[in-house]
């Protein structure tokens, strides 16, 4: 395998560091899962554009550091188990 170490680093732009930006602070609304209604059908996971829904033992929940608050999960949930609530609400 060719070795880049003998080449200057300023030849051309490359990026090797992964971006650490998280869009959780974009949210105006956030998904609130009614754990009693969740049947773990995975529809929210399937359609979440940022793929931030993780499986918990009894329900599915969004990663709030990543969730942009688009509301697709709430719209698609067949059980109506997800409500979009104001980010600043308790």
């Amino acid at each position, binding site marked *: *395998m*060719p*070795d*880049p170490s*003998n*080449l*200057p*680093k*300023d*030849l*051309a*732009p*490359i*990026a*090797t560091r992964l971006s650490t930006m998280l869009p959780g602070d974009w949210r105006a609304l956030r998904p609130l899962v009614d754990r009693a209604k969740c049947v773990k059908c995975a529809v929210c996971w399937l359609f979440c554009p940022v793929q931030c829904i993780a499986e918990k033992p009894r329900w599915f929940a969004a990663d709030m550091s990543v969730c942009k608050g688009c509301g697709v999960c709430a719209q698609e949930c067949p059980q109506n188990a997800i409500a979009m609530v104001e980010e600043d609400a308790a």
Partner: protein
Amino acid sequence: MNQLTPNSSLMPNSSQMIVCDGNEAAARAVVLARPDVVSVFPITPQSSLVESLSQFVADGVLGAELINAEGEHSVLSALQGACLAGARTYTATSGPGLAFMFEPYVRTPGLRLPMVVSLVTRDMLSPQCVWGGQQDAMSVRECGWIQIYCEDVQEVLDTVVMAFKLAEHKDVLLPVNVCHDGNYLSYGVSRVEMPAAGLVDEFLGEAAVNWHIALDPARPMAVDPLTGGTGPGGAASFVGYRKSQVRAMANALRVFSDIHAEWGERFGRHWAPLVEEYRLDDADIAIVTIGSMTGAGKDAVDAARDRGEKVGLIKVKMYRPFPREAMVAALSKVKAAAIVDRSVSFAWECGPLHQDVMTALFASPARIPLVGCIGGLAGADITGEHFARVIAATFQAAGGDIPSSPVWLNEHD
């Protein structure tokens, strides 16, 4: 011309005399350089070059991956991809094909992709024209490609091979255009010596990959992410890459000189890498030439010498980067010079080479008079008679009668 049937004799153990035109010579040089990927699209006057390459691949003489793309834009794009996957690559184009290639063309130097592309030079449209002239190559002289111009068929063959070594040198890592004049060199047939394949292998060595920037799952990276802007460090980052590119261009002067010296040692043919001085040491005036006109220019110098006129010639081989020190050193030997361009600079009412020589001369203590001559547009011939007029005008300029606008050599032909 006579398409010599490719066979095993193409890869001999010793050098071999063959007779071919410049397009075939370039194609045979490519065989010697053993590229991984060659992509082609035909255009006059380049077509027989890519026909030869295709035949060499069909005959198994050239073991490259051949991509018959649907146009020059994709030709160069496919080669960019191949380069980023570590391939040694080659193509050739001309005139409108080069114009169509422009978008990926301007990007190639910034990606630092060491490819070799022959430009079989042709005048640019319009007037509609299919004949030789250097307007196409000159139109891309500020894009960051190295540009080299050849004088004869042998120089085409030798230079295409050398260009791979130049492009891949770690102090350069830039794309190279080897230019040979449409018509006179594309179709002009002459006797050339084919270097031995084994010796070329030793000369070139393994293809050097620009492994700094590469697309390989074994070493994931984003290639050419957005760079610059006014965000933190953006400007500094962009400037850093541009400076590196400019430095690499400057390095090419030294590296190409070294490569020529090595070529001369290994193969016995000594070409001037930057500018060639011909009968210049005791000359009163010089003519500056570029490309296939040079041979007739040298004959015209000899004829002038026979008449007792002290005339010399300066041939430009490497045009980008411009060898300004070598040019100034050569010009410092004479009292006046004529620059014979085969294209025009629309902005300066002169030829582009003339413009470069003027700029170089600014750094010289001796600001000698320059005569701008433009000839050979659209396949027009630059003959001994034309050069005799150039020489006469240059002697007049040495005496103080300097024309303020170009001498159009074929104006009445």
